[in-house]
């Protein structure tokens, strides 16, 4: 489980499973790293990629590590959560844009099977409106600028101003920021009080440099 007083670097993996294996083996053994099985990876290989990633990471750090299944659940909340929890995930994600019934069902099932719930606020202007409708809060709220948005529309910004607002209202929830890609983004993210920064592109583009990249990012986390 995540520690509220710590900051985490979440690395999302989207290359082929063989490449991901090499990349994870290269990473520095740090508990500050969270490993994410990206949505394309799950859709390509199914839940077995979660189990394999979990094993690679465990053999790197010498104990079971934290693995997020980026399910981006939109319907059938409980069924999908059950499948990834069985495969060994420590957390799963649900879209904030999913029907409220689905998000509620997703959070309930996550707590039933004892994994963390993350609600991904991609394409949502006011995450508050979603949180207010929920029966129970998720473990983590992910503020997210999508990859396609990033590439095709440079004006859209990360909603760093929302971090304090959400934390001010809901003290217990952790905030993750996805969509920044540089060390500078990471520093800004943590300066604004986020708990988790999600990075993928640098690793996707230079898989051979996974070790150096991770060390660079980790050095920016206090």
């Amino acid at each position, binding site marked *: 489980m995540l520690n509220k007083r710590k900051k985490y670097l979440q690395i999302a993996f989207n290359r082929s499973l063989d490449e991901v294996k090499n990349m994870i083996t290269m990473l520095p053994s740090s508990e500050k790293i969270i490993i994410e099985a990206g949505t394309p990876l799950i*859709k390509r290989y199914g839940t077995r990629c979660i189990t394999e990633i979990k094993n690679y990471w465990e053999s790197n750090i010498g104990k079971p590590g934290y693995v997020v299944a980026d399910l981006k659940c*939109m*319907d059938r909340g409980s069924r999908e959560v059950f499948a990834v929890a069985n495969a060994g995930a420590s957390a799963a994600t649900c879209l904030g*844009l999913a*029907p409220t019934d689905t998000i509620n069902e997703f959070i309930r099932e996550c707590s039933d099977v004892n994994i963390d719930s993350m609600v991904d606020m991609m394409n949502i202007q006011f995450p508050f409106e979603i949180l207010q409708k929920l029966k129970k809060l998720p473990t983590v709220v992910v503020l997210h600028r999508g990859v*396609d948005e990033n590439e095709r529309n440079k004006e859209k910004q990360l909603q760093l101003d929302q971090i304090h607002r959400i934390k001010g209202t809901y003290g217990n929830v952790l905030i993750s920021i996805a969509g920044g890609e540089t060390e500078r983004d990471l520093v800004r993210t943590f300066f604004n009080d986020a708990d988790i920064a999600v990075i993928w592109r640098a690793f996707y583009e230079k898989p051979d440099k996974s070790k150096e990249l991770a060390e660079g990012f980790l050095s920016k986390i206090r």
Partner: protein
Amino acid sequence: MKTILNIIMSAISRLVTVQKDFAFIKKPKLLKREKYLHIALNNSLEEAYNIISQLPFSDRILIEVGTPLIKIYGTDAISKIKSMTPVGTYIVADNKCSDLATKEVEMMSVAGANAATCLGVAPIETIDSFIEECERYGIDSMIDMMNVDNALLVLKKLKKLPTVVMLHRGVDESEFSKEKQIPLYQIKQIKGFYSDVLVAVAGGDTIKEVQRAIFNNADIVVVWKNFYQADGDTAQLATSFLKEI
């Protein structure tokens, strides 16, 4: 027994992959004047096999590899289900894309899908890129309007229209909020504005709802297990459905 079945399946799948390279196998295409029954498979590959083996042969039946199957088995689910169906069957990959459209469309089309789905709630940039990629790979694009209040507003923002717009009430919604209705009036609204687009309706639980969708001019009706479980025999139901439309 299971291993023998697996060997036969993989042999058929290889045969189908080889055949795909030959132009004489016609690619299934959706026609504007037809009505289609779209059967979604969501539970397991074994169950999918059971259902498929009971279905009558018809080019008006579309087979969907549901999101849970894709997330559990990966794109293998698509090629395996494709190998269970008669050659030329139209296969929909319900990948529910919400980002990284280029990558997902490529994966689904390489696995043998004839259509892929993207969420209507996804960023417009993603939907635009999804439709472009589908065209590039020669597969149909379906936009799933689950949890979208007004599908027309989404369509108006797009650079290009998708092949199919799917009006959809989710499973969780249907179970927990019985009062939510499938917005059938939107079918005519959409067709009034965009005559080229096909409209699919998903989320009906009863045969009555299916009839209502067709009556309201839907081109495709999506059904899944709850629907035919409640009404008994899958094959019989599909046959009577096809007769009716």
